[in-house]
């Protein structure tokens, strides 16, 4: 692989791969972190047994659930997934990252890779969307840097852990230029 040029000092390279059961310990790093779980529908895991069951029952059979690895490393530092909607033209994505890797462009790199992969792999896909809590500016910045367009604030769109949230809708459509 060619050496990447030096003009973007903070460029981060990640790879995406399917999860394996043996990733449970790496996944536990973010799955047990209350700060990661705070914005998700699930509660922080307290032991690996239920997480192993989650990998086996929800992640492995999932249509598109990928481990985020830093280039050259095999240990996952986060996850990105595609959630199908009722329409083939439209898919939603979600992502989480271990806190040690926040603020370094890792999630942005993973989202860029995800968008490219989904448009390549999913026939008929025209729109990738993501919903972020209005109170989560860091995640909104990830999407903006990955080339998503902020479209709307959907009022009282969903409840996370019993708290009703306004969510910002972002999209990346198949005619948008992929961001390097």
């Amino acid at each position, binding site marked *: 692989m060619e050496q990447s040029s030096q003009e973007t000092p903070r460029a981060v390279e990640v790879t995406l791969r399917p999860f394996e059961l043996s990733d449970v310990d790496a996944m536990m790093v973010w799955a047990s972190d209350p700060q990661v779980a705070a914005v998700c529908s699930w509660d922080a895991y307290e032991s690996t047994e239920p997480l192993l069951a989650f990998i086996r029952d929800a992640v492995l059979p999932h249509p598109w659930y990928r481990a985020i690895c830093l280039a050259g490393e095999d240990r996952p530092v986060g996850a990105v997934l595609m959630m199908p909607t009722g*329409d*083939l*033209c*439209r898919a939603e994505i979600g992502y989480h990252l271990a806190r040690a890797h926040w603020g370094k462009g890792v999630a942005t790199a993973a989202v860029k890779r995800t968008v490219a992969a989904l448009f390549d792999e999913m026939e008929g896909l*025209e*729109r990738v*969307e993501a919903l972020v809590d209005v109170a989560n500016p860091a995640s909104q910045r990830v999407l903006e840097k990955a080339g998503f*367009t902020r*479209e*709307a*604030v*959907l*009022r*009282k*769109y*969903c*409840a996370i852990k019993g708290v*009703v949230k306004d969510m910002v*809708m972002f*999209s990346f*459509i*198949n005619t948008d230029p992929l961001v390097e």
Partner: protein
Amino acid sequence: MEPAAADGDARRAEEPAPPLVSLRPLGLDDTDDFMAWASDDRVMRYLKRPLCANREQAVAQIRDTVLGHPWFRAVCVDGGHPVGQVSVWPYADDGGRRANIGYALAHDHWGRGIVAAAIKMVVGRVFDELPGLERLEAVTDVENVRSQRVLEKAGFHNEGILRSYIAGRAGGKAKDAVIYSFLSSDRA
């Protein structure tokens, strides 16, 4: 009944009182009336429901998608037979908090304020009739200006444009949509 509100259209000032709209459940007895709009592509082109080509398909659609529906109403005018439909469908994954509103009106009755009146009635009662409902949303094709006006008249908030959101018909390109919402807290 209140006098017709001035809406800036000089023609309307001379028209008779606006139609009296009522909502009621729709059943198999209403099949022939249902066909009047459910078979009309001008009416159904923006809805996800398949067009009814014949009476058998209309019966099947009523039986399969109307009778067991969480909230489906026939729209009637001046105490007469149904001329349209309005429905509220809670999304599966949200515990009934969020629902989608859809509607269709026979083409002959367009332009009389019937759908706007029907939607106002829906908004006035559906939050009580579907406990837990907090957000009613409507998604319209950006080209469906008529529908957008109806929602605005009924007090819905335009939240933005969602690009390539609505699947294209017969494999065509996806269409941009406008998303609207009416919250239970928006009620006066």
